[in-house]
């Protein structure tokens, strides 16, 4: 019941878009959880930071591309480019997807350097890894707003 009945040719594009978005949210939840666990004193911050970095890099980034390619595909199928005034929910989707993509990249870079620093320091905490965790959770919140806009379609 993801949306109303559409032509089958649109459904392939929607499937790619939704699947990419779902895996991306899963990667952000996994990486965010690992980063939050790394903040706890006495835990192995390095192992969690590595897990978060690898999840964002090998799952989150490819899933973002799948979600974004699916979005463009269904945009062209539904011929939104020919509509003079695009609805608000489409604008919310574009802004959150692209801003989230930039923040995701920043988070990957920070998580990578943070994990490296923690491995060298052999314990302790890293401001880089912590920042990466906060950014990953901000991106997750952005995508929940996008999810609301995509399903409720305000405007």
């Amino acid at each position: 019941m993801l949306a109303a009945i559409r032509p089958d040719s649109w459904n392939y594009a929607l499937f790619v878009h939704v699947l990419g978005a779902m895996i991306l949210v899963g990667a952000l939840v996994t990486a965010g959880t690992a980063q939050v666990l790394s903040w706890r004193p006495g835990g192995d911050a390095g192992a969690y930071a590595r897990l978060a970095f690898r999840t964002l890099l090998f799952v989150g980034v490819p899933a973002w591309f799948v979600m974004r390619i699916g979005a463009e595909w269904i945009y062209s199928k539904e011929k939104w480019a020919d509509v003079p005034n695009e609805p608000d929910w489409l604008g919310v989707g574009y802004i959150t997807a692209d801003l989230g993509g930039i923040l995701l990249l920043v988070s990957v870079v920070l998580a990578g350097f943070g994990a490296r620093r923690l491995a060298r320091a052999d314990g302790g905490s890293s401001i880089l890894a912590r920042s990466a965790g906060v950014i990953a959770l901000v991106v997750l919140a952005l995508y929940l707003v996008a999810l609301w806009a995509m399903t409720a379609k305000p405007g």
Partner: protein
Amino acid sequence: MSGHDWLLFLHVLSAFALVAALVLYTVLIAVVWNKDVPTDVARLFRISKIGDVLIAVGSIGVLVFGIWLAIEDDRYKVWDGWVIAALVLWLVMGALGSRTGKIYNAARDRARSLVREGNNSPNAELRALVQDRRGLWFHTSGVIVVLLLLIDMIFKPGA
């Protein structure tokens, strides 16, 4: 926003929670696969707590809000073929998830008991538990069933 919009949002949000849990479990299975040190395994399994919450909330949410939507929306009926297919797939997903959970919870519990006993050397029994092929097959089958559910929801065959 109408009541229907809220129901649809909550239904899709639940589906996202469900898939997020599966992604988390997949990452967890991949990272513990070659671990045999009890503290390493026990530590990594800590992230499964959030997965357990997401899978519970997500699987109940998709079912409840999905049936509610089918009743509320005049275009669909609960006895439509694609809705019945979704209900059957949901039951299969639950059965597979339960089997997967039992296998990996056993590995997690064994790792914790070894840590409590003060035994932190590489353990062959623990490695065998985290590399249990049945667990991997049940998990993979669960992922395939959820993919089929997503295809059913989007393509709505017969609608």
